[in-house]
């Protein structure tokens, strides 16, 4: 039977169809709302070592190489590469069709400018450029690095996942002096920053980069095909842990990048929520000031390390047994260079030996100042417990509570504690930071030029240089183990064990999260709420 429509009805039907079409299009936009682990304040990823800025960088920029979930460095923007037998000459070709968000092609000139700016700020980048003879373009898509001496960690440098990451920017942006922040947020990554929606301290919005061409391989860690399944990602900043939990339970946000241990009890039994281990655990470490008494004395230093009781410290800070794991290696347990060759260090208290050493050190009983960051829920219990352990050995301890901003300033002071200096502080590292001797900031032995605490262990620097020169994994492992022994013997730092912070998602709504050093938003799919 033929269907007859009056012109009026036909017009109405057509309008309805149009409305449905456009309405469906608008309504079908998939928005993923997530609570980041901290506020994004600085947008230039070469300007700060803050992880949140690195994570922002991963959204909008791409990298030449990237680390997969097994820790292997894989090509990302690079199509092909090769190294000479002596690791002195490295050549690279970019993938065809790479484009920045403004439509301009990515060229080798962009890469060279980006790497030059990055190397002015990044420690490993500086080492790479010090060893480098030249870096030159070979056509629009190729470039060559020549080194004065063998440099085996080129791929580790170009694919490093911990800040500062060598993100590739357009040359005009990368030509910004390294001591000035960039103004233009243009990359070639899988998302674009919606600057008009950027509300500092409240909300950061990213849109899918529809022009992005992912690699063909499946996504793995930071490597592989960065396929985006959502149209828009909103980072919603919620400071209060209870507010975060409420928002997730109410479906106002879809995920929390990290669940604090205080919110864990309520979430792990809630059927609406699923806890996922995305990011690797990370270690806590004590950093000692080698410049002032008593830790300028190796015997007092060792006494303080022998007082450490990892289990007690971790239990106090992380509360739940499945949140923490004692680990005596300075490298992340289970990572490539982790080793159980730790000499005297067991992570368990050896009070008798410690008391004996402290007596031999001639410690004068002056207060040992440990800094406690009261505003940092992830760190604020450890110093008090460590203070008690040191008291049991015979140290006179003064745990001074301050805020994190004050702590990071105070740790730069080399004065005596009574003049505003310090003796020890405890901090946390991302697992990826602590996975290799070259990316782990506190592993320095060059005194005043090194990390806070300023230990002088020249052999440590020599070993790091040897590590950098080789590509041989067995050789690297051996060097890394020797570095660990040096670090512990000289009290460069003391590992306190590892904690993890799971990611919380709405069960059945969010899938596809990839194990990675930070929460990634490609490969993630959002379904409608089952409620």
């Amino acid at each position: 039977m033929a269907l007859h429509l009056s012109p009026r009805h036909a017009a109405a039907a057509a309008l309805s169809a149009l409305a449905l079409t456009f309405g469906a299009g608008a309504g079908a936009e998939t928005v993923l709302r997530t609570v980041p682990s901290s506020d994004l304040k600085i947008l230039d990823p070469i300007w700060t070592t803050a992880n949140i800025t690195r994570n922002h960088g991963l959204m909008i920029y791409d990298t030449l190489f990237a680390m997969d979930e097994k820790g292997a460095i894989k090509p990302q923007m690079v199509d092909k590469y090769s190294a000479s037998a002596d690791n002195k000459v490295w050549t690279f070709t970019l993938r065809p069709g790479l484009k920045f968000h403004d439509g301009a092609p990515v060229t080798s000139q962009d890469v060279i400018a980006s790497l030059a700016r990055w190397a002015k700020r990044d420690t490993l980048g500086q080492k790479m450029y010090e060893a480098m003879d030249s870096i030159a373009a070979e056509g629009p898509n190729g470039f060559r690095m020549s080194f004065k001496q063998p440099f085996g960690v080129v791929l580790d440098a170009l694919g490093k996942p911990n800040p500062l990451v060598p993100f590739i920017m357009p040359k005009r942006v990368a030509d910004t002096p390294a001591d000035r922040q960039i103004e233009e947020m243009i990359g070639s990554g899988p998302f674009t920053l919606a600057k008009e929606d950027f509300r500092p301290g409240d909300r950061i919005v990213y849109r899918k980069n529809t022009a992005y061409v992912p690699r063909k391989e499946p996504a793995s860690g930071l490597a592989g095909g960065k396929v985006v399944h959502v149209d828009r990602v909103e980072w919603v900043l919620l400071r209060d842990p209870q507010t975060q939990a409420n928002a997730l339970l109410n479906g106002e946000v879809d995920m929390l990048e990290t669940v604090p241990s205080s919110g864990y009890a309520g979430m792990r039994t809630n059927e609406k929520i699923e806890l996922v281990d995305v990011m690797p655990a990370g270690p806590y470490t004590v950093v000692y000031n080698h410049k002032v008494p008593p830790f300028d004395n190796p015997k007092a230093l060792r006494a303080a390390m022998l007082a450490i009781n990892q289990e007690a410290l971790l239990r106090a800070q992380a509360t739940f047994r499945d949140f923490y794991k004692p680990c005596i290696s300075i490298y992340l347990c289970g990572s490539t260079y982790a080793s159980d060759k730790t000499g005297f260090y067991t992570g368990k208290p050896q009070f008798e030996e410690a008391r004996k050493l402290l007596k031999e050190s001639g410690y004068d009983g002056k207060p040992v100042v440990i800094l406690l960051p009261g505003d940092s829920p992830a760190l604020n219990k450890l110093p008090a417990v460590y203070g008690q352990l040191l008291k049991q050995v015979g140290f006179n301890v003064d745990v001074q509570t301050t805020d994190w901003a004050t702590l990071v300033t105070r740790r730069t002071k080399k004065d005596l504690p009574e003049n505003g200096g310090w003796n020890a502080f405890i901090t946390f590292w991302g697992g990826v930071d602590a996975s290799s001797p070259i990316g782990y900031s506190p592993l320095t032995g060059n005194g005043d030029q090194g990390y806070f605490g300023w230990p002088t262990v020249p052999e440590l620097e020599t070993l790091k240089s040897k590590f950098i020169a080789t590509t041989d994994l067995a050789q690297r492992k051996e060097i890394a183990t020797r570095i660990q022994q040096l670090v512990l013997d000289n009290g460069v730092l003391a590992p306190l064990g590892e904690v993890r912070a799971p990611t919380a998602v709405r069960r059945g709504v969010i899938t596809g999260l990839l194990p990675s050093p930070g929460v990634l938003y490609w490969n993630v799919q959002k379904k409608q709420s089952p409620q």
Partner: protein
Amino acid sequence: MLNFLLRRGLATAPVLLIVAVIVFLLLRMTPGDPAAAIAGDAASAQDIARIRMQLGLDESILVQFARWLGQVLRGDLGHSFFYRMSVTDLIGQRLEPTLSIAAVTVVLTVLIALPLGVLAASRRGGRLDRFIMGASVLGFSVPVFVAGYAMIWLFSMQLGWLPSQGYSRIADGVGPWLRNLVLPCITLAVMYAALIARVTRASVSEALTEDYVRTARAKGIAEWSMLLRHALANAAVPIATVIGLSVAGLIGGVVVTETIYAIPGLGQLTVDAVLSRDYPLIQGITLFFSLVYVVVNLLVDLSYLLLDPRIRY
């Protein structure tokens, strides 16, 4: 009147200057270095020193102050160390949520507190009076975070009527704007209404003992008319003062409420700025708050002219 406004206007400048000097000096005396916070945890001492130099923090305090004061006199509050945005723009972005909370809370407060206060005064010593005053003690005593979480638990988590957090801009529609404001504003209104109801009761009670009330009653004026047109009108000055201070307090920072409900207002901005030692932002916000207090006080003083014709400036 013009003379009064001129005098008050001129008095504002030294107040703001004194506030500026004190805040500037206090910030420099407080431990904590914005450069270290910017550089991040893995940064070296050299990185921090370089950032200090770029921010001009290595210069003498006098030079830093002179430069900042020069900027302020040109109407420029400087740039945030962290967000790289002008302080004026940042304050502007956060002003809307704060003003929205303040406005809705004050309206709610007045609507609740004035009738209750007048009612309590009119039944002074009676059961209703005791009930209202008891409730107001409770309202004033319950900490804001307790009231806030209780309301979220009931209206968001259990009943699902309202969002538990966030702010929707008025440009995105009055409906969503109001939906997001209901819970935080009720949370605050409970406390402010309790305070203002008590002040209203006390003022109206006092007015009810005056001769003109007795005269009015003797003339047979209806009780409600006498309460509203005579007693309340004469008791309005202290009530207006408390309302004015409440408005200034609401604009000056309702940090706990903003944190519980994740509202990106000026209170939250202030806390963030202080924790990260964002000097230009803290200085700018403090100046702004000082100005708010000065203006609100002026408006309260001017309101006395309307409320009590006997007052002259």
